């Protein structure tokens, strides 16, 4: 069966390849038709775009249903665009990446499988890394996991280090998903390890607030103290005394602990020594 190659438009968008309209036709079109067709095309090319459209509408109105079906198949691919492959050809890789950055993980993985060029745009755009970073910014569970496991591979690399190659992040994503799934399943099935720390308050027992990291737990207590507990031994390593009311809220970083109390003061403590640096009265 002969396949007629029809010419593409000037833009070099994908050519339409269709079987010929009349597959029973064995002869070449007649010489009369060829001459008349050339004459018509010469007129056509001189007309304005609006006139050309009107002319084609006239032609279509004179055609039968079967012809319409054939024309429709011819036209359809001309109206399609491979956005992700075409944009880099115009130097607009970042716009292709912008489109792909809206995809969820499943869609991104399907997009990688479309064709080589889509795979290249996703790899060179480091889109898996960006997806993980977005999750870490917007989801506290992801943030928590990242800070424990792999935050050094995300965002800006440490001075002197480079980013990992894109593959690293493509495999990292499902590993994180598996970790999240097993955490959730552990909670659901009660497969957690419980350790109790007795805060040893003489009176006014109660814990109002805490923050923790891999080394310590900093707790604010109803007995007016802040107690710091070692994560591995569960022993109390510091007792910060100074507040004259329950410690209601606190936050710390690598330098200080800042606590708020029902004694209406805010206190700043040295996180390493436990010494009182400053306190400010918040009441009017």
């Amino acid at each position, binding site marked *: 069966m002969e396949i007629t190659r029809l010419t593409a438009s000037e833009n070099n*968008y*994908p050519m339409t390849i269709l079987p010929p309209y009349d597959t029973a036709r064995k002869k070449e079109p007649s010489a009369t038709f060829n001459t008349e067709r050339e004459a018509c095309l010469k007129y056509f090319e001189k007309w304005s775009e609006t006139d050309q459209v009107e002319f084609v509408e006239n032609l279509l109105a004179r055609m039968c249903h079967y012809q319409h079906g054939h024309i429709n198949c011819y036209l*359809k*691919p*001309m*109206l*399609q*665009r*491979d*956005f*992700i*492959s*075409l*944009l880099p050809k*115009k130097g*607009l890789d970042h*716009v292709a990446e*912008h*489109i*792909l*950055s*809206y*995809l*969820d*993980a*499943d*869609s991104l*993985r*399907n*997009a*990688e*499988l*479309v*064709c*080589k060029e*889509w795979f290249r745009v996703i790899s060179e755009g480091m889109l898996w890394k960006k997806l993980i970073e*977005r999750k870490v*910014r*917007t989801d506290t569970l992801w943030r928590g996991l990242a800070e424990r496991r792999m935050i050094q591979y995300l965002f800006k690399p440490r001075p002197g280090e480079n980013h990992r190659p894109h593959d690293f992040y493509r*495999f990292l994503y*499902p590993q994180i*998903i*598996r970790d999240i799934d097993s955490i959730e399943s552990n909670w659901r099935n009660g497969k957690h390890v419980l350790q109790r720390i007795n805060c040893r308050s003489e009176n006014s027992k109660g814990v109002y607030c805490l923050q923790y990291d891999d080394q310590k737990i900093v707790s604010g207590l109803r007995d007016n103290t802040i107690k710091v507990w070692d994560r591995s031994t569960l022993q109390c390593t510091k007792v910060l005394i100074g507040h004259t009311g329950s410690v209601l809220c606190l936050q710390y970083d690598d330098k200080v602990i800042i606590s708020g109390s029902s004694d209406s003061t805010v206190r700043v403590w040295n996180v390493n020594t436990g010494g009182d640096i400053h306190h400010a009265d918040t009441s009017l």
Partner: protein
Amino acid sequence: MPNIKLQSSDGETFEVDVEIAKCSVTIKTMLEDLGMDDEEEEVVPLPNVNSAILRKVIQWATYHKDDPPPPEDDENKEKRTDDISSWDADFLKVDQGTLFELILAANYLDIKGLLDVTCKTVANMIKGKAPEEIRKTFNIKNDFTASKKSRFVEENEWCEEK
């Protein structure tokens, strides 16, 4: 209300309110660099945008003229594609060729709102589809060889586990 004349690549001129035209950072910068003269009406040439597309861009900008300025990419927000307004959705019910030209124009003219909504629209055409469906949507040929494809599918099986 001062107007500005915008000239498309095919020579057609469009008269537009200056404030509407300035939603395009490119045009805004051009005007600031040239200096605004109220006496003569400035003609801003836009050689990268044809009249059909420029007409549509002006239509979008006119409808959105009272929008608050878009925030700088707020990286702490989830990226959503389900928040396209119904007016924009209707406006973008066009063939892919026109949508592509609108993306190019929005990028060239630096109109963040239009670029975002057109890109979201394309993303929505990709979302939720298997690779073969994506290829049908955009008329893309599968150029992976059989061996590379099967190795690749194996590596990606984690997605199937859901």
